[in-house]
């Protein structure tokens, strides 16, 4: 009896044992700062002096008085709407390209990954040079072939595009994730399909794509989060300009905290962003049951049935 109980306990405790590192880390390092930042969002905290409680004041101010809040939110949504699918499409395309069995593909693989390795500070300086409207390398090259390039970082109509151009440069990370996943597909799966006479396009859509849906989900969610939190690049490349056309929500939050020293307000900004991302993520997850296929899931059913018999 005792042994049975112990066994049962162990079986029940096992999963918690595996996730315990994260739980401990969460309790020790994460939850405190998270809660404190939530509390702070109800305070007026000018950093250099003591915080003062102001109830929902920060939130009310944000929604009713601060025009920049809505503008920045719109800019970030627009950026996410363009950047997320674009970046994922490019990453997947590149990942397919570098899995092709051609000679020298290794070298290209490394080349595609180099940009993702370069530190953000240097990347933004280089792009600043390249994209400078009057004295930049890109417009100089364009002028050689008779095109007058736009003022990338000065014309509000082009600036967001310029930021997307520069951030697509870091696509290597996502490419590598897709690549690893594609590489893990057993060749037998393809061989079977080849015998059936499936074309490469067909193979891609009916074999590769379904198998990598778990990583597509991963990349989708993390890049939604990433595009809302985009700060470094815009801060260094455009500073939010021209005419605040790239004043991303992440930059808005950062500036409220560290430029205007309104840490309470910035916390409120961050928590509103949190809610928005959370809703988006929940929607994606909800929908994922229809388009993400986990290899393991079919088997799970079996196990459940077996477990029931015991």
């Amino acid at each position: 009896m005792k042994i049975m109980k112990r066994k049962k306990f162990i079986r029940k405790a096992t999963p918690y044992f595996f996730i315990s590192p994260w739980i401990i880390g969460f309790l020790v390092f994460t939850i405190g700062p998270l809660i404190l930042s939530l509390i702070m969002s109800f305070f007026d905290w000018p950093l250099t002096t003591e915080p003062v409680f102001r109830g929902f004041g920060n939130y009310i101010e944000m929604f009713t008085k601060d025009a920049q809040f809505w503008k920045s939110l719109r800019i970030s949504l627009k950026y996410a709407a363009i950047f997320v699918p674009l970046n994922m499409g490019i990453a997947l395309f590149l990942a397919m390209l570098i899995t092709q069995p051609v000679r020298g593909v290794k070298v290209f693989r490394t080349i595609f990954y180099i940009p993702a390795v370069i530190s953000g500070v240097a990347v933004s300086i280089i792009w600043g040079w390249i994209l400078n409207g009057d004295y930049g390398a890109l417009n100089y090259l364009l002028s050689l072939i008779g095109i007058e390039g736009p003022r990338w970082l000065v014309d509000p109509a082009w600036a967001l595009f310029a930021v997307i151009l520069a951030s697509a440069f870091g696509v290597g990370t996502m490419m590598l994730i897709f690549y690893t996943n594609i590489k893990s597909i057993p060749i037998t799966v393809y061989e079977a399909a080849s015998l059936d006479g499936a074309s490469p396009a067909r193979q891609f859509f009916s074999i590769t794509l379904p198998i990598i849906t778990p990583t597509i989900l991963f990349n989708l969610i993390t890049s939604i989060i990433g595009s809302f939190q985009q700060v470094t690049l815009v801060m260094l490349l455009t500073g939010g300009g021209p005419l605040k056309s790239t004043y991303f929500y992440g930059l808005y939050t950062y500036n409220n905290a560290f430029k205007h020293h309104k840490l309470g307000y910035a916390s409120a900004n961050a928590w509103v962003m949190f809610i928005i991302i959370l809703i988006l993520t929940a929607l994606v997850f909800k929908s994922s049951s229809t388009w993400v296929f986990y290899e393991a899931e079919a088997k799970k059913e079996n196990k459940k049935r077996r477990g029931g018999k015991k």
Partner: protein
Amino acid sequence: MKMSRKTKAIIYILLTVIAVYFLAPFVYMFFTTFKTEAEAIAYPPKLLPSKWLFENFVNAWKSQPFGTYLKNSILVTVLTTTGQILSCSLVAYGFAKFEFKGKNILFMILLSTMMIPWDVTMIPQYMEFNMFGWINTLKPLIIPAWFGSAYYIFLMRQFLMGVPKDFEEAARIDGANSFQIYWKIYMPILKPSLILVGVLNMISVWNDYLGPLIFLQERSKYTLALGLAAFKGVHSTRIIPMLCITVIMIIPPIIAFIVAQKYIVEGTSGSIK
């Protein structure tokens, strides 16, 4: 798989065009490191330096105690990467292969921790580390990594979810316990994604400068990325040394990547070559 000549040609053209897009800024940067600052900003821009100033690299390296920074960077990178791989694979395994009470909520919380920007949790975190006495040490940069990070846990979980359970059934029948299954069955299968997590973590830690900026104080504790950022002043930036260090800093991750690439390919036997 066999390929027609035409397909091959198309692939090569695509590869080349994209490579040019990715390499152009880097090449531009690389040649700039040998120029004088005046030449670097000259208009019209020239690709090659008129005189190759190899000493730029030496001067850049000497301008700050980069030897010390390198040591710190390696320490932080190696220790966090080891920690992340171990902890994230454990946690991901827990989330992917078990059913337990509160799993969905815990997983949602895990994801949520990625959604709050660091700007607003940084100061509370600083207070906490200060309480621990960790400020101005490398501990705040290393120790949390041993408890996993949501990003990599999520990534590993996705990979694990894709692995059929057939693999473990046999072992279960042989009486192996969960830890043995994790260690002996899933780790080998997951080698490519473990390597992937290692590479991704290595690069983000290697280049991270906000963490070191906030938690470190003395130059003897600085990392390379922080030293790199220190070339950027309030009114002027030392562009040439900054680019030199950037180029030097790219080398270790690239080597790691080339090595890792091999393992990602070899990891699963029978995958397409």
